[in-house]
């Protein structure tokens, strides 16, 4: 059995990175919004799903026209990011901002709104797909350019072009975001609002605008992640965002919520753990517990972290202010 485990290990780690990068990108959206608003934006999993659906549609309609698969993917990534980002802004504008304007102090109100928005988006996408194609189980069209595969390390890893693209794009986005948050004026403003919204507004920062930008950035990251997810895992439904959403949030908590490098780290760690258990659980238990339990593992990790290190891997303990 050990031999079997060792033989699979390189592939498991490689696949774990694929999953981990998707989680990392989605987790950033959760963590940034949590940073500025202290709100678990449940709708973010649907922003991710919208990105995936846009990806499928771009491939469906443009694949015959566009010759190069790489150009096609670039178009899909841009469109997916833009549509998802705009949706995120609209959600903020019409669902969350009215609550802020009223100045509700009750913490349940925005949370319940977020859950409601998430449900509305799922069924809206289903409705649109239903009217458009009379079907909401979507399959990503495969394009030859992106499907090519290589064997690495003497056949220990089977890797496809699209997997390398996924990792490459993720790393680019993560580096870009880190630059944006740490080095630009907008980044300073976002961090200022996250630290203290009221004081930031006294320093000439318009919080509403910054919050809107934060949703745009987090949303487009989620959308890009969605397109890459669709490319990698191919089957997409309007309800596909829910589980990756919970897990990406788990990743954000794992890394320390509100902490941007933490979200990336958390995503990668969670991707590895989940893929590890998903592959080895059936082997270790002689098939008695199947791959389905990988979702349970992710959830147990969440509980475990909340118990032993609620501030996350990279987070700092924050004293509650009165």
């Amino acid at each position, binding site marked *: 059995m050990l031999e079997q485990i060792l033989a699979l290990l390189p592939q498991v780690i490689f696949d774990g990175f694929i999953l981990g990068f998707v989680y990392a990108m989605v987790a950033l959206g959760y963590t940034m919004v949590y940073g500025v608003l*202290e*709100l*678990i934006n449940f709708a973010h999993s649907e922003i991710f799903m919208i990105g995936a659906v846009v990806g499928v549609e771009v491939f469906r309609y443009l694949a015959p026209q566009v010759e190069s698969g790489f150009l096609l993917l670039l178009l899909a990534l841009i469109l997916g990011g833009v549509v998802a980002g705009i949706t995120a802004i609209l959600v903020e504008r019409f*669902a969350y901002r*009215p*609550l802020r304007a*009223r*100045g*509700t*102090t*009750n*913490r*349940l*109100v*925005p*949370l*319940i*709104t977020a*859950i*409601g*928005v*998430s*449900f*509305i*988006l*799922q*069924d*809206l996408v*289903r*409705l649109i*797909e*239903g*009217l458009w194609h*009379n*079907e*909401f189980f979507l399959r990503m069209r495969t394009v030859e350019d992106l499907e090519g595969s290589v064997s690495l390390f003497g056949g220990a890893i089977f890797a496809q072009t699209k997997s390398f693209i996924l990792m490459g794009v993720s790393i680019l986005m993560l580096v870009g975001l880190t630059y944006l948050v740490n080095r630009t004026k907008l980044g300073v403003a976002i961090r200022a609002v996250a630290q203290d919204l009221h004081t930031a507004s006294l320093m000439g920062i318009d919080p509403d605008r910054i919050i809107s930008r934060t949703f745009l950035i987090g949303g487009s990251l989620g959308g890009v992640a969605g397109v890459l997810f669709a490319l990698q895992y191919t089957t997409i439904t309007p309800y596909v965002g*829910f*589980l990756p959403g*919970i897990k990406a*949030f*788990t990743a954000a*908590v794992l890394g320390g919520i509100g902490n941007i490098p933490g979200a990336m780290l958390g995503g990668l760690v969670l991707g590895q753990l989940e893929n590890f258990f998903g592959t080895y659980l059936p082997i270790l238990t002689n098939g*008695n*517990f*199947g791959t*389905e*339990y990988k*979702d*349970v593992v*992710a*959830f147990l990790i*969440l*509980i475990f972290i*909340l*118990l032993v290190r*609620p501030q996350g891997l990279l987070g700092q303990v924050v004293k*509650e202010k*009165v």
Partner: protein
Amino acid sequence: MNALSSLLSLAYLGLAFLAPSPVSHLFGLAALGVTAFLRLSPTWRTLSLALLTLAFTVGLMRSGNTLGLIGLVGILVALTTLPRIPTGIRVLLALAILLLSVPLAGFANTFVFELGIQIGIYAAMALGLNVVVGMAGLLDLGYAAFFAVGAYTWAIFGSEQAKNFLQGNFPLPGEYMYLFMGIAIVTTALTGLLIGLPALRLRGDYLAIVTLGLGEVVRILANNLDHPINFTNGPQGITPVQRPPIDWFRQLMATLGVHLDRTTDYQLFFYFLVLLMIGLVVLVNVNLANSRFGRAWVAIREDEVAARSMGIPLLPTKLLAFMTGAAFSGVMGVIFAAQRTFVSPESFTLLASITILGMVILGGMGSIPGAILGAAALTILNLDVLKTFSEFVRISLPQIPNQVDPAKYERLVFGLILVLMMIFRPEGLIPEKRHRAEMEEA
């Protein structure tokens, strides 16, 4: 104004008798609105309510349409919330609706029983969730998980399923259901303890995501624990689940002069059982709200730090709320399993949890009549109105693709209810006093 409401009620009574149709029932609901919301003298209002009760009953009996049930629930809510109606009349009318109108309508149209039982089960659960979300302010997004634990507790032992891992005579006879209602209270409260212990130490929003995950885990377990040992029979679900024997109930009804046939006897029985449970749950709810714990919950909801400085132990108090809510859900799960004689993971999805949450939000967090009204409104919407509407769409607009079937878009409807309520009326339709104050304060 006074005479107008009674005239409208009288007109609806005539309509219900002579021309029962969805339109005339909508007219009746309008008449109820006039009676409930305009300034009326107590005598006239009472008279109108009594007339409307009669009219909705007749309407339900004479048409296959169940809109009248909304009317009856509306009258019940009006009776519990409107001021200056003599107590005797309140009780009398409420009893007449629950014990006469609904069963009479049910004999004419068994779907009314089915709806009544579902409303009752959901109302009891909404009241349980009301303790968690409304009183203690803890957002539980996996409430259906406890419902599942309760339902499976009885379904496994009340069917041949238990033979797979235990020696003995299974299924257990139906009488054991009553015992299992007690056992389910314990198992679900323990499940609540197990989940709450880590999750409740942290800030409120973490509880939301942990309970969301819990709901998913329970569903995964129910789906997959058919191997290596078959506990739950996987996605096919468990059937048949035993129901309690009701010979005594038939005899009792016979001595009262009601002769039941094979289809209505169990429905009437479960209808009364559910009513009894709601009565108990309301009693517990009211007593809890006024107890030391109820006050502690409200204090925690409004300001955790302040509550702690007043000497309220946070974790145990929150745990108690969480476990109480879980136990309510568990008991109803047992009844649900027995009433339908069938249990499958399908019934315990995230959608179910959010539906129950929607009931609490719609009625008003912390409000007891609100939770019941919310349960009735959403259940009728879900089981009746959306289905009727989708029938209508299918017939009148055949060119619309069949994927666009309104009955499949409950999520959209519930999502809209949650968001619109939160933006425009966060205190709910029938606000509880303290909650209204809290929401308006900001």
